[in-house]
C-alpha cells in the first residue's frame, strides 16, 4: 500500500472532544516542532460550546513556511467517536490514522487505503493512573509521547515546554514527563514507523508565535488607546482581555500605581460603541472589539460618528453570519456591512490585516487614522487570524514616530483669532479642525449633532448646508486614500494576463497556491488589498489584466461589489471565487479553482515564457 512520505511538510489533525484538555496537549506538539526550527501553523476548529462537542486541531508542518491551510490531512489523531466516520474519510490515501485501540475497531469503519495505528491509550492510562481526571488529561499526553516517537519530535523540546508551563509546580511537571515517557515507550516497542518525519532545521528565525487578537490588543496599547469599551462576543473577546492584561503591566503610573487607561465591559455593543464615541469626542484614543452581530447593533452610532466626525476604532474579528451565524467559524463576511455601516450615505475606512503582525501594526495605525480623519476606522480581522497562534514577523515600533492627533484647535490658536468652524474646510482636504471640550472659556465651544448643521456647527436644516457637508465628507474620503496602507503586489515571474486580488486571512494560503500554480506553469500577478477606500493602484492593476480572480471568504463576493461600486472597475473583468463554509480557505482550493478557471478560459500553458 502507498505510504505518504514527507519530511517537515505534512498536515496532522487532532479530533477531540472539547473540554477534555486536548487543546493544550495538541499545542504542545505544534510548539515542540516549532522549537525544532520548523515552521508550523496550527488551527483550532472549535464548537460554540464549553464541554462535550467535537473540536479539531489542525497542525500544518511546513518547512517552506506556508502558514495557510493546505487542505487534506496526512495523519488523523482520532480521539472522538462522535466524528469518527468523517475524520476517517478526510485522511489522504496512504495517510495515517492514529486511534485509541482500547476497544476493538470494527473493520467496516476503517479504510483499506490508509495506515491504521492503534494504541490502547485508555487501557494504558487506567493502568497507570487511578484518578479519573488524571486518566483523562494524561491520555492526551500519552498520545503526544507516541507522536513524538513516530514523528521524531525531540522529546527534550517537549520537556522544556513542560518546564515553562509548570514552573514552580514540580509535581505536575514530573507526572507530565512520566506520561510522555509512557507514550514514547509504548510507541517504540509496539508501533511500526511511519513516513512522516520532523527534522531539525533553522527556518523559524526571529519570528514570533502569537494570535491576532493579542497582537491587536498590543497594537492598541502601543497606539496610545486610553479607553477600551467592549462587550463579550466570540471571536473578539480576547482582544479586550489581552488589552486588560497588557495594560496591567504596561500602563501603570509608577508613582501612584494607578492605571493610564480605562476599560469598561459595557452592557451591550450599543453602549460599548457609545462609550468609544464619547471618549473620542472628548479627545481620548478609544477602541472597541467586536464581531458581526456587534457591528449590526452599533450601526446607528457608527453613522453618528461618521457625521459628527468623531474618531473611533473598531476591531472587527469576523465570524460567520448572518444572525448569530457561526460564532466559532471564520468568514470575511462583514465587508459591506462595515464599509457602509448605518443609515444614510455613509462610507467608512477599513483595514485588512493578513496576520498578527499586521493586526498589531494596523490597530496602532487605525488609532492615528481615526484621529487624522475624525471618523470610525475598522480593523477587519477574522477568527482565523484572531484566535489562532500564527508565526509572523516580530512586532516593530519606531520610537521616533509621534502619534498623529489630527487637527485639534488649541487654546492659543483660538486666542490668536483663528476662525474656528467645526465643519469648516480650511485646508481643502475635507478634514476640519475640532476642539476638545473645556479648551477655552469663550471660544471654540460648539454643539455636536448629526446632520442638521452648518460649517460653524450651528443648527441648520437648510439643503445647501447639508449638501456642502456631504460633499466635504466625500473630499475627506478622497483624502483617506492617501493615508491608508497601499496594496501589496506579488508579481509573477513572467508577464501574466491573469491576476488575483485577495485580502486578510486568505493571504498565506494564496501565497502557497501561487507557488503551486507556478510550478504547473500558471503564472498570475497578485495584489493584496490592505484598505478601503481603494487607491487608484488597485483599479490600474485590474485594468492591466484581462481577468482578475477575486478570492473572498464570503458567499456574495463583498469585496468585488465594493470594487465595482467604489473603484470604477469593469464588472466583467472580475471573477469572484468564494469559500464560505466557515473553515479557513485552503491552498489546494485556491490552486484547483484557478487551474480550472484558467483552463476554461482556454489558455493552455505550453511554454514557460508564454503562459497565463
Amino acid at each position, binding site marked *: 500500500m502507498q505510504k505518504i512520505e514527507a519530511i517537515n511538510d505534512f498536515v496532522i489533525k487532532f479530533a477531540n472532544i472539547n473540554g477534555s484538555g486536548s487543546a493544550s496537549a495538541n499545542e504542545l506538539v505544534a510548539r515542540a516542532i516549532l522549537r525544532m526550527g520548523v515552521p508550523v501553523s496550527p488551527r483550532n476548529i472549535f464548537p460554540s460550546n464549553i464541554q462535550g462537542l467535537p473540536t479539531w486541531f489542525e497542525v500544518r508542518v511546513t518547512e517552506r513556511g506556508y502558514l495557510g491551510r493546505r487542505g487534506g490531512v496526512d495523519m488523523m489523531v482520532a480521539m472522538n467517536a462522535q466524528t469518527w466516520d468523517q475524520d476517517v474519510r478526510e485522511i489522504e490515501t496512504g495517510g495515517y490514522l492514529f486511534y485509541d485501540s482500547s476497544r476493538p475497531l470494527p473493520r467496516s469503519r476503517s479504510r483499506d487505503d490508509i495506515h491504521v495505528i492503534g494504541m490502547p491509550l485508555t487501557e494504558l492510562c487506567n493502568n497507570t493512573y487511578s484518578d479519573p481526571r488524571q486518566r483523562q488529561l494524561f491520555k492526551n499526553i500519552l498520545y503526544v509521547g507516541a507522536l513524538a516517537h513516530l514523528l521524531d519530535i525531540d522529546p527534550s523540546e517537549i520537556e522544556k515546554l513542560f518546564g515553562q508551563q509548570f514552573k514552580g509546580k514540580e509535581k505536575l511537571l514530573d507526572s507530565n514527563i512520566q506520561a510522555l515517557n509512557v507514550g514514547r515507550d509504548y510507541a517504540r516497542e509496539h508501533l511500526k514507523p511511519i513516513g512522516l518525519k520532523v527534522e531539525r532545521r533553522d527556518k523559524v528565525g526571529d519570528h514570533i508565535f502569537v494570535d491576532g487578537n493579542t497582537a491587536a490588543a498590543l497594537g492598541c496599547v502601543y497606539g496610545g488607546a486610553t479607553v477600551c469599551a467592549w462587550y463579550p462576543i466570540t471571536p473578539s473577546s480576547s482582544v479586550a482581555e489581552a488589552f486588560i492584561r497588557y495594560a496591567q503591566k504596561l500602563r501603570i503610573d509608577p508613582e*501612584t500605581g494607578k492605571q493610564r487607561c480605562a476599560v469598561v465591559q459595557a452592557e451591550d455593543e450599543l*453602549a460599548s460603541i457609545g462609550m468609544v464615541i*464619547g471618549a473620542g*469626542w472628548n479627545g*481620548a484614543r478609544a477602541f472597541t472589539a467586536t464581531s458581526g452581530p456587534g457591528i449590526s447593533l452599533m450601526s446607528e*452610532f457608527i453613522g453618528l460618528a461618521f457625521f459628527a466626525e468623531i474618531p473611533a476604532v473598531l476591531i472587527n474579528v469576523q465570524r460567520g453570519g448572518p444572525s448569530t451565524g457561526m460564532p466559532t467559524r471564520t468568514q470575511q463576511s462583514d465587508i459591506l456591512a462595515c464599509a457602509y455601516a448605518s443609515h444614510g450615505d455613509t462610507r467608512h475606512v477599513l483595514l485588512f490585516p493578513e496576520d498578527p503582525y499586521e493586526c498589531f501594526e494596523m490597530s496602532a495605525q487605525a488609532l492615528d487614522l481615526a484621529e487624522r480623519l475624525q471618523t470610525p476606522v475598522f480593523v477587519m480581522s477574522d477568527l482565523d487570524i484572531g484566535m489562532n497562534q500564527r508565526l509572523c514577523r*516580530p*512586532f516593530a515600533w519606531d520610537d521616533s514616530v509621534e502619534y498623529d492627533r489630527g487637527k485639534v484647535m488649541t487654546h492659543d490658536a483660538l486666542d490668536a483669532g483663528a476662525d474656528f468652524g467645526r465643519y469648516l474646510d480650511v485646508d481643502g482636504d475635507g478634514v476640519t479642525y475640532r476642539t476638545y471640550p473645556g479648551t477655552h472659556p469663550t471660544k471654540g465651544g460648539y454643539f455636536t449633532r448629526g446632520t442638521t448643521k452648518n460649517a460653524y456647527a450651528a443648527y441648520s436644516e437648510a439643503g445647501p448646508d447639508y449638501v456642502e457637508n456631504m460633499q466635504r465628507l466625500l473630499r475627506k474620503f478622497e483624502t483617506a486614500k492617501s493615508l491608508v496602507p497601499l496594496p501589496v503586489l506579488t508579481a509573477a515571474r513572467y508577464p501574466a494576463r491573469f491576476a488575483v486580488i485577495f485580502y486578510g486571512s486568505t493571504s498565506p494560503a494564496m501565497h502557497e497556491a501561487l507557488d503551486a500554480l507556478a510550478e504547473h506553469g500558471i503564472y498570475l500577478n497578485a495584489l493584496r488589498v490592505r484598505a478601503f477606500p481603494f487607491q487608484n493602484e488597485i483599479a490600474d492593476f485590474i485594468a492591466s489584466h484581462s481577468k482578475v480572480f477575486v478570492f473572498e471568504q464570503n458567499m456574495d463576493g463583498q469585496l468585488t461589489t465594493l470594487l465595482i461600486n467604489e473603484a470604477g472597475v469593469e464588472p466583467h473583468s472580475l471573477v469572484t471565487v468564494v469559500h464560505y463554509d466557515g473553515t479557513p480557505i485552503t491552498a489546494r482550493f485556491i490552486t484547483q479553482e484557478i487551474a480550472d478557471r484558467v483552463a476554461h478560459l482556454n489558455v493552455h500553458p505550453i511554454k514557460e515564457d508564454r503562459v497565463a
Partner: protein
Amino acid sequence: MTYLAKPRLHHPTLAKNRVGYTRRDYEGKISTLCAGCGHDSISAAIIQACWELDIEPHRVAKLSGIGCSSKTPDYFLGNSHGFNTVHGRMPSVLTGANLANRELIYLGVSGDGDSASIGLGQFAHVLRRGVNMTYIVENNGVYGLTKGQFSATADKGSKSKRGLANNDTPIDLASLALVMGATYIGRSFSGDKAQLVPLIRGAIAHQGAAVIDVVSPCIAFNNHSGSTKSYDYVREHNEAVNRLDFFPQREEITTEYGEGEVIDVRQHDGSILRLRKLHAEYDPSDRVRAMAYVQEHAARGEVVTGLLYVDNEACDLHQQINTVEHALNTLSAAELCPGSAVLEKINASLR
C-alpha cells in the same frame, strides 16, 4: 418661542460671580420649545445653579439624547461643548466622555422617552457604574417631538390629549435609580425653582452618579385634565419630603434651626447639603426605606419630591477602576507607549 435674537450686550451692573461671569454668560441660544414648556424652566434652573456654583461654563460638558428635552442643552451654557447623541444612548456617550477627561463636569439631559423607554437599559447601567455626572430627566410622560404619544413614565389610566387611556404600568425613574445604585437622587417639579436649583447644585457637587427626575409638564400634549403630568395635577399631588439648602465648602452656615428639624450631609468635596425636614420621619440616607416611602406615596397618587437619597461616601467609576488622576486625554505618547525596548522583550516571550 420667539424669533428675536438675544442681545449680546450685557448691562454693566449685572452681578458677577466669583469667577467673573454674569448669569447671562451661562445662557445659550434662544429656546425653540413651546411657550410655557416646563423644560425651559429647567434650563433656567441649570443656568442659575451653575452661576451660583461659580463654575466656569466651558468646564461643563452637556450631553443629551433625542427629543424635546435633549434639544435643551443648546439653550443654556452656550460656551460649553454639547453633544446631541442618539436616542436613548446618551448615558454611554457621557460615560466615554467622562472616562476621557475626569476633570470636567458632566451634565446629562434627557427625557422620559429617552431614558425610560428606548434608553432604559443605558439609564440603569450608567447608574450602576457610578459615573460622576448630573443626570436630569425632564419628565413629561409623552413624546413631544412626535406629537403626544405616551412614554413609559405615563401613569396607568392617565389620558392622552386625544382621550386615550394609558394601559401600561409606569416606570418610576427615581425608584429605579434607587435600585440601580445612584448615589444622589432627587425629584422635583419644573414649576418649583426654589426646590430645583439647590437640588441641581447639590447634584453637581456630588462626586458620583446623581439623578434628578424633574416632572416637567408638556404644555402642548400633556397638560389637560386626565393627565397626571400636568401643571395642575403635579401642584395638587406634590409631596415635598424636605427642602434643600446647598452650601459650598467655603460658605459659612449661619441659619439656625431647632434640633431634629434639619439634616446636614457633608459631601466629598466639602459642600454641605442642609435638609429641612418636611416629613419628619423621612431619612434620605436610608436607601431601602426611601424605596418603600416613594412607592407607598406613589400608590396614593402622590408625587414625592425633594432629595430622596444621598450617599455621602459615594465613589465614582474612575475610583473603582483606579485610573490616574489626570485626564486620560492629556497623557502623552511617553506616558502611553511602552517603546521598542519593551516590545523586543514581548517578542522574545512569544518565541
